[in-house]
């Protein structure tokens, strides 16, 4: 059973006011600024032009620079990022992740409840996972279910 999203108000939102303030400042700047009328593309095909520009081919109707080098660099960056991600997530030789005993699926909120749930196969229900903050749930699914409904 899943829970509905709830609006979680509290003091942790205070830093968000800074973001709001930034938006206010930006809006003030944007709205007071004036721009000339946009030039637009006059109905020229945009997507094919992007393709021509990116591979440095003749035929694009819209003026632009050549992006072949940038394309290749992005390619390299992507490969490097892929390699880095694989390296970071690498498992050790015996199949375990580096520095951890087992994989957790509860978002890492509570180590104790997870180990308890693994120890007791019967309690491995959805309600068990969503209510893992309550230590009482570890005793059994019978008590866990009403708690989960209460939370709903």
């Amino acid at each position, binding site marked *: 059973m899943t829970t509905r999203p709830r609006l979680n108000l509290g003091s942790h939102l205070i*830093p968000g006011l*800074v*973001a709001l*303030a*930034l938006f206010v*400042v*930006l809006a*003030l*700047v944007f709205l*007071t*600024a004036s721009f000339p009328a946009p030039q637009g593309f006059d109905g020229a095909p945009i997507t094919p032009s992007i393709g021509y520009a990116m591979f440095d081919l003749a035929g694009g109707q819209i003026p632009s620079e050549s992006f072949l080098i940038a394309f290749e660099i992005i390619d390299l960056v992507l490969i490097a990022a892929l390699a880095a991600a694989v390296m970071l997530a690498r498992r050790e030789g015996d199949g375990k992740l580096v520095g951890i005993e087992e994989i957790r699926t509860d978002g890492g909120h509570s180590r104790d409840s997870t180990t308890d749930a693994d120890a007791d196969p019967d309690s491995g229900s959805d309600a068990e996972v969503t209510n893992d903050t309550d230590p009482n749930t570890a005793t059994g699914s019978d008590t866990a279910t009403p708690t989960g409904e209460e939370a709903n």
Partner: protein
Amino acid sequence: MSVAEASTTAFAFEVAPAIAVLPLASFVIALFAGKYFPKKGALAGVTATGGSLLLSLWVMLTVAGGAYYNEEIYTLVSTPESFDLHFGVLLDPLSALMLVIVSLVSFLVHVFSLGYMNDEGERGLPRYYAGLGLFSFSMLAFVFADNLFMSFVFFELVGLCSWLLIGHWYREDAPPSAAKKAFLVTRFGDYFFLIGVVAVFATFGTATFAGSESFPVLAEEALTDGGAGGELSTFGLGAQTWFTVLGFLILGGVIGKSAQFPLHTWLPDAMEGPTPVSALIHAATMVAAGVYLVARMYGFYALSPTALAVIAFVGGFTALFAASMAVVKRDVKQVLAYSTISQYGYMMLGLGAGGYVAAVFHLMTHAFFKALLFLGAGAVIIAMHHRQDMWEMGGLREKLPVTYYTFLAGSLALAGIVPFAGFWSKDEVLYEALVHGLTDPLLLVAYLMGLIAVFFTGFYTFRMVLLTFHGEPRTHTARNPHLPGWNVKFPLVVLGILATVIGLTNMTPVAEATGLEIEFLHTWLEHGIEGLNSEHYGELLETVAGYSAAELSPLLAAALSLALALGGAGLAYSLYSGDRPDRHTDRLGDARTLLMNNYYQDEYQVWIAETFGTGVARLSDRFDQSIVDGAVNGVSSVSLFSGGRIRRIQTGIVSNYATLLTLGLVALLLVVGLTGGWFL
């Protein structure tokens, strides 16, 4: 003068710096490689000082040929508009004479040390010979210094070396303490000297001794012409008053180094050092440095009758004061220490009384006979297995004939018995003091004190000789003395001959009586660089200082002082000449206690140091602790405190950093926008 001659003349002066550099090289060799040599660095020292002696003699011969040398060799600091600090070489009759004296005594002391230190199996010999080398280097460089700044530098180096050497046996209690005392007491005087050097620079813009731009010449022009005086800044005082103040400031260093009252207290304690070191310090280097400095810049002192009178009075008083203390001492080296103070008093008296030649003469003869006496005492100490109490000696005459006869020659010279060296020089000092003193009561008092000191000198000298060498041996050690070797006897014989005959170079009374031209030292010092010879000093004394000499036969004064010296010697003979002399000084009662305690000089100086010194030190400590340290600690505690507060911003939580970044961006946008008019 032919071309070849000119070139050799120049070459003698070219190599003159080597006179000082050779001992410096021996210092380095002895210090770093001394322990690998069979004699632990002694041979390097002997070779170096022997070389210095030969070079000095060469320079002296060249100077005798009428050539002089005054050159800068190394400039330390040069400022185009005001003044420069440089090292230079000034070779004129005075410095050439002194170079020979210093290098000769230093050479003989090195030879003697072979017997006194090496043969006695002393430890730390490389350190010892390194100290001797550095000492010789400092003194020789001091002697040929061409300006006051260089003099000061090597003056201080001499003080440092005396500290090193007096404290040679640093594992015992007394030598380190004596070394510290020597260092601190002379340093007290050197403070004034330092201020004086700075003041000379501030006044004249130069500190050179010789040449038309030297400070004595500038001072003389300021006083005689009157016109040039306006260019010199005399700090609101009259020119002559200010020159007197300058003279006094420099005199502070002289009084400290030359052990004049009241800064003489370090010298008797300095006897804790090895005896050859005492000989070196007393005869040729450290103590002589003070008097030599006055002689070197005599053209400046001759301008100030007040400074001269003070020099003379201090000298005369010190001569008598120290001689009286020497009367009761039991330690043979202590007697010699007080006699040194007394003799340097005579030199100061001579300088102050206008007897420049007389004082230099006494400096020269004293260097020889005092080195002889100390080395003789060293030989006695070797023989006595390092016992120094004269009451444990006696009867050494038969066992140590060479030592006895040379020591006797030195004693006769010290007591001033004709025809030994001390007679001629001391007599001339007293004669100069008398002829100038007849018109000046202060000088006359100084002369009278010096005259009385002659009697004491004769007495304590012969008390020392009689107690040491005559009578029956009073201890087992004195009956079986350790006989010294050739390296002890050789310096004694050389110095004994010199102490006997060196006075004959300047027999003023004989010259006066016979009319012969035999005052060689007068002739020697009369020529020289312009403005730096005794003739010029005599003119200055008459015209500027207002000294006038009474007409008096030197024979009369000589007869008087000789009679007093013989009287003192005779009294000593009658009291101590028996086989078993009594301790006659005990009969002096309270006076003996006073003299044994050196007039309580140490006590009152310690009292002054403790009362005022501790007070000043406490005040400065408080200032240092509260204001200086307070400011430093305040700065650090403010930054510590604020750092401790501000670091709490660094929570380590990414969100907070992001918040701060965003806040900064908003603030930046607002500032840029407001100043750039974006919101209008």
